[in-house]
């Protein structure tokens, strides 16, 4: 583990360069360029606001519904977008994986980290929108870095595991595509999630994204993390996932070139 982290640290410049490359390439040859980063959560917000104000009214407490959806989507796309680009990342870079040696962790990690720019822009827009809805800035915002570190740890851990899984078994990508859609509806992204069914509630307790996104909203709209226990649990799950991902990745890395 220590060796693996050391190696990644040694190659931090490469990591930075790959992140740059990903970001640079994503908006190269597009007209709107970086504006696309806020365009899609914004349109989704409009759609969901329209649907949920017309056909099914959702109670989001003190948080205005459009902001509820927008903040949820922003945090969710950071998670799902990072994962969808990291699942195939090792396979897509097979020529490098089979021909040059360097810590392969940099691929999924750069795929995750390069999504941070999009997220920062979406977040900036959220802050611009807040006053329009009469939301005041509080010290709760100081929690944001902590919450993001937890979310990133969980995402990075999954990215390592899934990219590796997809290298060995290409089914992983297809399974991931279905699971991530279901996962979104099992998370408090576009509506607050709770169930009267005890079993489903227990199941939902295993989803660290719910407390993470709830904590995010709490920090932005309600002055702090309202339910610290689930968030602590989610943090534990996140770091266990990250360490498991790093350890397993490092252990199996030498097989990549021959199994890809």
């Amino acid at each position, binding site marked *: 583990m220590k060796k693996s982290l050391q190696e990644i640290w*040694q*190659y931090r*410049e*490469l990591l930075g*360069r*790959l992140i740059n*490359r990903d970001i*640079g*390439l994503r908006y*190269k040859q597009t007209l709107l360029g970086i504006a696309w980063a806020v365009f899609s959560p914004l349109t989704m917000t409009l759609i969901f606001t329209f649907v949920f104000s017309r056909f099914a009214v959702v109670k989001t407490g003190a948080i205005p519904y459009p902001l509820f959806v927008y903040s949820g989507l922003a945090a969710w796309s950071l998670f799902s977008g990072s994962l969808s680009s990291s699942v195939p990342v090792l396979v897509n870079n097979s*020529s*490098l994986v*089979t*021909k*040059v*040696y*360097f810590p392969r962790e940099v691929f999924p990690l750069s795929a995750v980290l390069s999504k941070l720019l999009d997220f920062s822009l979406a977040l900036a827009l959220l802050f611009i929108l807040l006053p329009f809805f009469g939301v005041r800035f509080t010290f709760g915002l100081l929690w944001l870095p902590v919450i993001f570190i937890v979310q990133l740890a969980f995402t990075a851990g999954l990215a390592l595991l899934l990219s590796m899984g997809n290298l*060995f*078994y*290409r*089914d992983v990508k297809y399974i991931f595509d279905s699971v991530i859609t279901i996962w979104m509806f099992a998370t408090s992204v576009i509506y607050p999630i709770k169930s009267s069914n005890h079993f489903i509630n227990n199941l939902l307790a295993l989803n660290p994204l719910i407390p993470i996104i709830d904590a995010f909203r709490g920090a932005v709209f309600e002055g702090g993390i309202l339910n610290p226990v689930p968030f602590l649990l989610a943090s534990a799950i996140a770091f266990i996932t990250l360490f498991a991902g790093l350890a397993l990745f490092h252990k199996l890395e*030498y097989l990549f*070139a*021959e*199994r890809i």
Partner: protein
Amino acid sequence: MMQNAIEFIGVSKRLVKGERATSLRDLLSGNIGRLLGKGRLVNPDAFWALKGLNLEVKSGEAVGIIGENGAGKTTMLKLIAGIMKPNEGELKVSGRVASLIELGAGFHPDLTGRENIYLCGSIMGMKTAAIKEAFSSIVSFAGIEEFLDTPVKRYSMGMFVRLGFSVAMHLDTDIMLIDEVLAVGDLNFQAKCRDALDRFKESGKTIVFVSHDLGSVLSLCSKVVWLSKGKIMEAGEPQKVVNAYIAYSEKTAEGSLKLSRDNAWSAGYNPGNAVKEPRGLAVSFEGEVYAASMQGHCVAVFSPEGKLLRSIGAAGIGEGKLYSPAGVALSGSALFVSDVSGASVQKFNRDGTYLGSFRGEFAEPFGLCLSGKGGLIVTDRKLHRVFELSTDGRVIRSFGGKGSGSGEFNFPIAAVLDGKGFLYVSDLNNHRVQVFDAERNFAGSFGSFGSGPEEFNGPHDLVIRENVLFVADHLNSRVKRYDLSEVPGKPSFTGAFGLERSMLPCGIAFGPGRELYLSFGGTELIGKYFTGEKI
């Protein structure tokens, strides 16, 4: 005593051929098999790419690795580079390794040359400061000054590779692995690469160099390792190892059996008996290849691997002697040979014992094929006739005559019978193949002079395998295929295999597998070709 830069101690590496199990279904079915108690399932496609390799590379040494494709050369480099780990044994590498296994592997097509230099440099482990320092030198070495801000997808292949090599040459490492990269770029650039490698070597760095270019290996390396099927055949003094490799690969040249007079000689046979102007070919069920050596005055017998087993017939004219053997046919344990100069067809046992000869009425018997009734069909190129012989050598019937009309020949050179009794006779100077039915009535003809798909330039030997007729189109350097399964006696053209322009096929025969043997006129060569799953 110099330190070892690289040390292989009994290193073995197992790899899996072709597509690996990359879907969950394979995983599940594999594990279910294991659960059902079939024991540890061994992947049938796995093979040892390297087996028990022992090798020391001293620091500062330039070692060349040679060997045929699939010998394990690249696997060796990948192990040294740390891309793979050995399954058995131990590999010690001291120092930083740069691998040029593929140039430009780190390049992204949409990024500019400048961006790619930084990206590729950091992939290879260079620090940004070091890349900055070497930047102008990298650019000028590659000669891409004007294209620095062009995406590399718009680069020519030469520019792309030059840039890749240039970045790699500026890496500050102790060990450099080079896989088959010097054959790129123009001569000028190649000379630059050579100089760069020499400088690299002079500065005391270790080089492991894989190449098929034996000249480069000899000029760069102080030690050469010859790998074959994952094992070291020979290692040591470059010239000695390269010579041994050349001698070996001439015997087993991939895809073709290369049989030279020297090989026959070194095998202990009469040099006059070596394959020289090979003509007719026949292959036994065991895969032994019988080649009529027209100017070698014998029938040379080879193993499927191209080893000369024996030669049949002494040079000369008369009983048991062959002067210009042209056609061969195998029937059970008997071998029939037509001798053009001896105006005879001789019968030998397959071990070479002379059994008798048919003289009959022919003048220059050339092509031979077995007739369905246990006899023989002989084409006589001088009388322009086809003879059918009974088992005891009597002429049952003959037909033909010189001319270009139906049923007439001008140099009938070979004949073959299909399963329905149709006889196909190649007519060298009329550039056609004539078809005769079971009663030997003229049933058609195909081909005319030319180099078009359905034209011939001197059709030679014929062979039928699985209802497909193959014709050696001598001066067009190709082998044509005709499908016989549609209308009996009406072959339909289905394509051709092209050969190298200088290869003029004469004899043609199939081995027990689907391997195709061709003999080449004007040479001492017999080629072995694999036709694949389907003919």
